[in-house]
């Protein structure tokens, strides 16, 4: 599974790329999330100027199979929204960590960065999840 090392992560499968001096952040969905969701057909993203709060729902992603909430990894004010993915949500499937970014925020509380997962933490979660899924498959 693709987990870039220069990003931070959440347990709910969002990624965070920090800007200069950790003042801003770009937020997206991980490759794992897009693969689980399958073909993404619709995104409901926050608007520029919206205040979002860490750990709360701030966006919705819909695929042909599921609808899922996106949780804000950090608190802050939305400064930019990726118009390209709103028009063509499949970009998230094609390039979750690159062109498929969702929105950018200006951080309200840099202390929250402590709560985020490193790439290795996140990778561990994924591999635990994978072995759990395998166990479940065996039980069936």
């Amino acid at each position: 599974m693709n987990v870039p090392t220069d990003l931070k992560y959440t347990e709910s499968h969002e990624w965070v790329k920090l800007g200069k001096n950790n003042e801003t952040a770009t937020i997206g969905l991980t490759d794992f999330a897009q693969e689980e969701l399958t073909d993404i057909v619709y995104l409901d993203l926050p608007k520029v100027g919206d205040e979002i709060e860490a750990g709360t729902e701030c966006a919705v992603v819909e695929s042909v199979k599921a609808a899922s909430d996106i949780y804000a990894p950090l608190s802050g004010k939305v400064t930019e929204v990726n118009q390209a993915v709103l028009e063509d949500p499949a970009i998230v499937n094609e390039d979750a960590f690159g062109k498929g970014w969702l929105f950018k925020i200006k951080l309200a509380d840099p202390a929250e960065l402590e709560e985020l997962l490193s790439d290795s933490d996140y990778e561990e979660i994924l591999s635990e999840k994978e072995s759990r899924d395998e166990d479940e498959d065996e039980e069936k």
Partner: protein
Amino acid sequence: MDYIPNADADLSVMLREIGVASFDDLVAAIPASLRQFKMELPVAMSEPELQRELGAMAARSKPLDALTSFLGAGAYEHFIPSAIDHLVSRGELYTAYTPYQAEASQGTLQLLYEYQSLICRLTGMDISNASLYDGGSAVGESAYLALNAQPRRSRIVVSSALHPEYRQILKTYTAGMEVEIVELPVRDGVTDLDALASAVNENTAAVLLQSPNFFGCIELMQRAGELVKPKGAWFVAVVNPLSLGALRPPGEYGADLAVGEGQPLGIPVGYGGPYVGFLTSSKQLVHKISGRIVGRSVDTEGRDAFCLTLQAREQHIRREKATSNICTNQSLMALRVGIFLSLLGKRGMREISELNLRRSHQAAEAISRVPGFALKFPRAPFFNEFVVTCPVSAQALCDRLEGEGILAGLPLGQFYAGMERELLVCVTETKSTADIERLSEALGRAARREV
């Protein structure tokens, strides 16, 4: 004998597990008077006896075609092309329910798709769902959606000229939700727009206006919408679809949702059902609206194919986050609507709409000339219904006219305090000049007797 397949042994295990001594203990919270309900049925009849009994019961009700009816108020008598009954009673259509193995029923899906397309053309809206139960539930859904889609907003503003039963349904729908329902007063037959302007705030999820409203009057929808939009609330238009052949459709005055009762389009008045509700929206709200939506696509070989689409809105996928619990539709009645609209076409809809306008205005003039009778709202334009102020109790007049085989209309006192002399009269294209003369003469005669 009942049909709950629990043996006594099963029951005692379950009761022990729950921790009660008996079934009566389990349901002790239900008042004893309700628990002791007994059905006292007569002995069974033979089939010929039963047929006679039912025939006698049926003869006690008066079929509409044996009366001359000016009753509207949400259920309207219109011409129904006989092709509709013939087509919908075909076996492959009559049994059609909302499709569960949706894509296996391409014919059913296509019919619903055609229904949606026709409703969109009629309302001028971008999206239609595959129908709801009736106009009242469509109104309830519209408010429910607006509240669920905008969790920070908890006020619903409605006109007191919205059908009183729709307002009741709205309260039922929103019971248990954090909601404040504000009712706007009526001035000269239409909603007071100054009151609207002050009632709409940043906490308002939706504003519901009906046009033609319950009094038959046409609201200033464009201006109302302009008052609602800047506050970010949804503007919901509740419309009579048959009026849209003559009146501006909601899509042209910027309604976010347009909903209503589809009965006027090819469905008999019946006993108040089965009817069909329509719910349409602007494109921006397609991910929020309730109900099934049929989409047109292509199959693996590139042929036209129909499918249920945008299902991520619905509760079987979105679960508790869904804006609505609706997961069905009203296929057979939607089919009647679809056939009605296809048979009439654009020109036919315009003609039938204009005929309603003409006939009702002819009747309003005729009744106004009867001594003691006057239009209640002479300044407000109306479609096929209008309110008449009578010299005596409207209910008393209706009772007298019923004896002559005329349903004169709806006495408004039962819904609006202080309107005991007001009568809501509906005149559709089904009424001839002779019918109208008969009504005004009968009203005059009955009023003289009452005085």
